[in-house]
């Protein structure tokens, strides 16, 4: 009796979520898949074109460049963010003055909107940096503009990752450190052999989240470069949105989105497998 009413409660909680998830996630995904086999423009009639969109994807230099750019950005930003936020977390977890205030302060970038941050950095890169260093704007340089985007992405996501690492550091019991210090583990060795293995699960989650977020980078591109200069900073998401919604390539970009979806799932699963196999349990 008790268990059936419990079951019913669970079902009442679960079913609405499931329906919403199906309506707003699964259904559009299926429709997107269907559109990927058409030459749909977003309105009016369309024809079935079979696998033409997928074949075109392989030979499209612009799509290829957007994948290269996105991977380059995601790798660089993920590395930068994880190294920087681990260092930040270690610093903010040590015995320093104003610890709580500093933690709050360093979290601020995370609560600002990505577009706002983007526009501010846009001004910073266009006017302030060139004025201080007497160089030209990095955003106007087709070869280096991606670095500016890495910096902006990293600046903003370091905050969240730092918080996750701090909470990870707090799960490491003090007695492990004490035992370690008796064996002479200090400084780098203490981090390398005690702290890092014990916060490995947090490293896994941060790596996966970072990679996934940066693969889907969109707002920063919108605010900083709009894909330029010379189409050098077009991310996959940007291209899908721009050409699929604003341009007339709804069908083709749906195919692109399907490929991209599969790719992100694959990368995330591989990453999880690889990293979680290295996690240590106390």
């Amino acid at each position, binding site marked *: 009796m008790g268990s059936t009413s419990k079951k019913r409660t669970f079902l009442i909680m679960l079913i609405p979520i499931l329906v919403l998830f199906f309506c707003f996630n699964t259904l559009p995904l299926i429709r997107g898949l269907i559109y990927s086999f058409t030459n749909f423009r977003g309105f*009016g009639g369309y024809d079935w074109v079979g696998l033409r969109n997928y074949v075109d994807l392989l030979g499209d230099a612009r799509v290829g460049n957007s994948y290269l750019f996105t991977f380059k950005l995601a790798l660089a930003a993920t590395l930068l963010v994880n190294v920087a936020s681990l260092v930040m977390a270690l610093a903010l977890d040590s015995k320093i003055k104003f610890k709580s205030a500093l933690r709050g302060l360093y979290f601020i970038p995370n609560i600002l909107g990505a577009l706002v941050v983007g526009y501010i950095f846009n001004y910073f890169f266009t006017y302030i940096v060139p004025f201080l260093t007497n160089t030209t704007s990095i955003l106007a340089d087709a070869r280096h503009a991606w670095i500016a985007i890495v910096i902006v992405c990293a600046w903003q996501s370091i905050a969240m990752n730092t918080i996750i690492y701090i909470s990870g550091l707090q799960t490491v019991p003090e007695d492990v450190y004490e035992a370690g210090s008796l064996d002479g583990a200090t400084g780098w060795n203490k981090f390398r052999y005690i702290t890092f293995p014990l916060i490995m699960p947090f490293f896994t989650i941060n790596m996966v989240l970072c990679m996934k977020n940066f693969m889907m980078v969109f707002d920063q591109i919108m605010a900083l470069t709009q894909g330029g200069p010379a189409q050098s900073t077009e991310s996959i998401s940007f291209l899908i949105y721009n050409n699929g*919604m*604003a341009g007339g390539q709804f069908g083709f970009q749906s195919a692109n989105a399907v490929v991209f979806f599969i790719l992100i799932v694959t990368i995330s699963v591989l990453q999880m497998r690889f990293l979680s196999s290295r996690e240590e349990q106390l």
Partner: protein
Amino acid sequence: MRNDTITRRGFLGLTAAAGASSLLSGCGGTASDGKRHVEVVTYKQEAVKIFERLQDEFNATHDDIVVSITCPNNATTVMRTRFIREDYPDIIGIGGDISFSNFIDAGILADVSDFEGLGHVKPAYLDILETLEFVPTEGTFGVPYMANAAGVLYNRQMFRGHGWDIPTTWQEFIDLCETIRAAGILPLYFGFKDTWTTLAPWNALAIELAPSDICQQVNAGRTTFTEHYRETAEKIQALLAYGEDGPFAYGYNDACTAFARGESAMYTIGSYAVPQILSVNPEMDIDSFVMPGNDSSDGQVLNSGVDLQFCVMEACPDKEAAYEVLSFLLEHDNMQTYVDDQNAVPCTTDDFDLPDMLDGMRDYIEEGRMADFQDHHYPSEMDVAGQIQTFLIEGDVDAFLAKFDADWTRYNRDIIQKVQDYYATQA
């Protein structure tokens, strides 16, 4: 999970559109209050105040018809989202560009050739609309309302102060740039960080250096862009030397501000930039001239296209009411209000007071010596603006032209097929 985000955006658009349409008490036909409702959606967000005023005036003077005019942000996307759901407004106000071509091709616009107001419209603009059809299609699908003009804006006070003359040939234009530079002033400002701004000088040069129907000719397989766009490409490249340092670092807003502050003598952009420039420097005396692309003394034409036209949707149930609204919008005084506020060029044959900053283009407008923006034929997903920016950064004319032709066939495959099928059946 990119798909997820896209649909979320689409969903937001849908809810926005649904919200808007429910607010507007449904679209078309007779509603419960016994009145005929006409819904107009225009893409001219900057003219929202004028349209609100016109809407109120219409509703105050008409007992049986209620009109609602909205100018949503990002209107073309909002319209497209509504079209996906087959939720059509009665009238849409759009530009004469590739979207219009696509809408005709999709068969969602009504033939308005029986609308008598068309008799007042300058034939040149009706011709422009004709050329926007992918294949010749029986009927007229839009009522041209306002045109814009692009060329070169100049600081009239500065020109008078130095005694500089308006150039009428390419050579004179280059000489003028040299003279201005010798006077220690920057001749031009570009703002090419925003890629679309590259299209302003590009269009103005292309109409004088390439055939006006080049896109149709290419679609029909009769010529290539490589053959006709070389000179345009070389000339826009030559202009770079007279602009600001590192033009790819500054965007449209930066360029408007710099020109308004007198940092450059000229600015290669359309008349639509004037309100923004004046917002920085309300006292500025701006005029414009036609970009002289070639060296023939009488060969210049004004770059002017349909900036705003009204199209009745095929799904509109009450065309009579829609025409009544169109006639009202086309009344002389209402158009003059729009012209004064937006620095636009009216598309009808009535007499209007044109804004000062079009002084240098007045003769061309009155004589109808103009040609449409060539980018109105470029598919937006091909991103020609981005390609021009790439070319100006890298400086390789041959690579640019080759890519232009290759991309054109790639992005227009379905249209080219349609055009060639059409000519095959004609022959």
